[in-house]
């Protein structure tokens, strides 16, 4: 019951928000109510899942006219991401509270996006997974293209074509898998594909996932899309859409092709390490604070790939931790950067300075988020990335020193951004801008609380994830 509500609530909400466009501000209230309701449903679903003896909550439409039926599965792997989606949707609704250009369409698209993302994370069937995966593109395309910054049209088209190209590979891979397995069901997939088929399936699917994450050679759409999207779009893109890739690797690709995964794991880990260093280096060179956050995302998602590449259950758990942490941290950072842009209409780091004086509350939260981003122990960034490096060390040895360089660079770019924006000579032109408003504070508070909670007690999240990833690690280990 609760499982299908997770999908139905935002989709129905989208229709309602679209319908109330005549009334001023009604759509944003619909957006808020619906997204809060979905948080409630998500919490109820997770509580029921944890309370029940079975590892997952399954909802199925039952066969109607044909053989296949719609199946949604909530388990340890999907639950954290479902919760993250519900939370960040609310944040995105609050972040776009003052959108003036067709607000009804904006909120409707945001809720539709949320519904599609929920379907991706809950899909129990390859076809549904792919359909939802692609369906995410449509609202995101319009969110970037209509409500984005100056170069929004270019960014929206580039985003769509890049990810659609990745998905085309994925589609071919999925069809190969379906024809060979003879079933479209996810989970309970017998891992008996012949080795050469596994290799095809793995790489075709992985390309689609790696574009979405994005891993380094396939990341070129990211800076434009992240930077040109409106704040709500950036929050959803970086916070949730990038997680589709990591989730897809763990949920879809590895179970279908465990042997090919074992063979390719060093490549994935290598791409991860490359991303960690490359993302950090490019972030260091940015003069635009939104692009800085965008590039830092590449580095953070590198840790996700590294964790997955280690192939151990703790490594998969680390990847999940890093994904949830990145979702919270980058969500908060984009929210704060968006607030700053709202006040100053610029992203140029050089024009800021001494913001701690004019925007004390904002500056505190920005420092907090930056510390989480650089991986300060006690905040959410630390456990996932640390665990990923530890697991990587166990598998790949001293190569992890390179990742360590990335961690060092992360401290550098985060702290130098904090220094340049919050401290130093106060910028005269922004001396009188106003601090966080109530809606913005309400949006930021749960993210900050989440960052703290995951940082202090990462074991809770690992506990939720562990049944699924242990089973997976056993499959991979058995195949190696």
């Amino acid at each position: 019951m609760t499982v299908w509500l997770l999908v139905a609530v935002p989709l129905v909400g989208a229709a309602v928000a679209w319908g109330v466009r005549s009334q001023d501000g009604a759509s944003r209230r619909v957006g808020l109510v619906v997204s809060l309701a979905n948080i409630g449903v998500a919490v109820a679903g997770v509580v029921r899942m944890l309370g029940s003896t079975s590892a997952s909550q399954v909802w199925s439409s039952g066969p109607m006219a044909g053989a296949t039926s719609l199946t949604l599965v909530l388990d340890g792997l999907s639950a954290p991401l479902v919760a993250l989606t519900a939370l960040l949707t609310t944040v995105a609704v609050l972040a776009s509270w003052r959108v003036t250009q067709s607000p009804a369409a904006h909120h409707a698209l945001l809720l539709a996006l949320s519904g599609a993302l929920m379907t991706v994370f809950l899909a129990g069937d390859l076809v549904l997974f792919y359909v939802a995966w692609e369906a995410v593109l449509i609202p995101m395309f319009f969110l970037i293209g209509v409500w984005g910054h100056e170069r929004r049209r270019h960014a929206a088209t580039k985003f769509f074509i890049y990810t659609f190209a990745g998905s085309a590979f994925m589609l071919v891979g999925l069809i190969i898998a379906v024809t060979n397995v003879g079933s479209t069901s996810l989970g309970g997939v017998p891992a008996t594909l012949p080795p050469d088929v596994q290799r095809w399936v793995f790489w075709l699917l992985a390309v689609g996932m790696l574009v979405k994450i994005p891993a380094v050679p396939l990341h070129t759409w990211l800076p434009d899309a992240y930077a040109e999207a409106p704040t709500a779009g950036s929050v959803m893109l970086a916070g949730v859409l990038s997680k589709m890739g990591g989730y897809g690797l763990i949920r879809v690709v590895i179970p279908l092709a465990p042997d090919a995964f074992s063979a390719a794991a060093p490549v994935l880990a290598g791409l991860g390490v490359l991303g960690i260093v490359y993302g950090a280096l490019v972030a260091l060179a940015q003069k635009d604070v939104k692009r800085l956050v965008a590039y830092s995302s590449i580095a953070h998602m590198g840790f996700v790939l590294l964790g997955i590449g280690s192939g151990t259950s703790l490594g998969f758990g680390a990847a999940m931790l890093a994904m949830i942490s990145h979702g919270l941290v980058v969500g908060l950072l984009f929210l704060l950067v968006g607030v700053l842009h709202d006040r100053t209409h610029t992203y140029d780091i050089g024009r800021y300075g001494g913001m701690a004086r004019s925007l004390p509350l904002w500056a505190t939260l920005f420092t907090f988020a930056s510390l989480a981003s650089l991986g300060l122990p006690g905040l959410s960034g630390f456990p996932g990335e640390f665990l990923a490096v530890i697991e990587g060390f166990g598998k790949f040895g001293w190569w992890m020193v390179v990742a360590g360089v990335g961690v060092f660079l992360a401290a550098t770019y985060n702290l130098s951004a904090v220094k340049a924006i919050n401290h130093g000579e106060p910028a005269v032109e922004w001396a009188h801008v106003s601090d966080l408003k109530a809606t913005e504070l309400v949006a930021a508070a749960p993210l900050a609380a989440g960052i703290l909670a995951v940082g202090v007690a990462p074991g809770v999240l690992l506990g939720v994830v562990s049944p699924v990833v242990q089973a997976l690690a056993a499959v991979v280990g058995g195949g190696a």
Partner: protein
Amino acid sequence: MTAFVLDVARWAAPVTSILWLPGALALAGAALGMTADMTGRSRLGLAIVTTGTALAAVLTLGSAFLGMAAPDEAFSVVFGAVVGGGSFSAMAFVVYGVALMALSTGLRSVSDARRVPAAALMAISAVAGQVAMGSGDMLVLFVAIEMLALAGYALVSASANRRADEAAMRYFVQGAVSTGLFAYGVAVLIGAHGGVSFSADLYDAVASDPLLLATLPFVLVLVSMTFKAGAFPFHSWVPDAYETAPASLAGFLASGPKAAVLTALVVVFGRSFWAQEAFSDLHGLIGVLAAGSIIFGNLAALKQRDVGRMLGYSGIAQVGYALVGVTAMAPSTTLFATSYAIAISVAFTCLDAYRRLQPDWDGSIEGLAGAGRRSPGVAFAMTAAMLSLTGIPLTAGFVGKFFVFLNSLDSGLLWLVVLGAAGSVVSFGYYGKVIRAMYLEDTEGDEQSADVGIRAPEPAAGERPRVWPAVVGALIVLGIGTVPLASGFGGLLRFFGV
């Protein structure tokens, strides 16, 4: 729900099982409509033609559902030469349906004098399409396909200007060559086998022929049919024809006859008993035509500025995907042809409506800027059509492509599937441009002109274009893409899969 529909189908069975009735009604509508037009009552004439076609569509739909309810007795042969019922009726419904969509717009972009004749030609063309798809005799197939082509030449020239005449003339001259090839191929087939023209007997006879005699006439037939379908390299008439024909007629031309010819291709080259025995020699050839169509159509469409021409070139690529299905002998090819036919006719219907709404529109993609705000209904339907033609999930186009690719991989045609997937990505380059123009492009200049009161002249009362046919079509496109996610794809495949 499904049970209810099946009950209705059973209840209506006595009527819907008369398989010659739809064609007869559509033809009667065309004849009566023309008669009314002769007496100067063109509105009545159009209404009669539309009614005839609508009745045909309803009957074929009912007959298709009847086939779902009782699959064993779904198919039967009409007049000893045309197979009907089941998925043949479903495809006939598609052809009548797209004709009905074009007729429902009122054909206001066609001049008064030619409106009813054009409508009657569409109805006749739809009947010819139904016959071509179900023809169990090579001569009947030949006559039906020529009928389709003749109606096509006339429809292309319906604009009655020099460019349209030129396009129609070129189409006609090239078409005459392809007719010759078809006639020659059929003559060799029938002549070499003692006057047998019934397809099944012919296939039996061919199976024991020497290779050259078995292959050559079918190569000629294949070339001729792929010309009618507009596949590479026999495509050169397509963009001119679609650009110059009035958009509502182009919508039918691009959908109805194409769906019919593609289905006939599937029947002759993909699904026949003969095909499974001796067909393998032609596989490679069709595969090459498919690949060429996908590559050429996509690349050529990328360069177009005019929406009609872009749709024309993209249609070549779409035929390529269908030919991939023919190569693989995929039963889902007709499902793909259905998705293509509905989406392309929605697209042209949108263009027709938009041209009426914005008389100063130059037909270019950039000229659609701001359509999302000015004509939300048109923009919505157009977006659904573009997404479906690209093959994005939640639309019929995805379902069609997905199953064609699935069947093709089962037949080991990985290279064609990869090419098709790559072509789909490229296709967003031009389909996406339309969406981008409608919703994303700056329309500030437009708002300014609205502020000072200078607006595009409102169409005169009674002249407002009908947008609902396009919107209904768009909803069907989205329905085929979404409903089966919950209800399963099996029914859809049985319904449309020949």
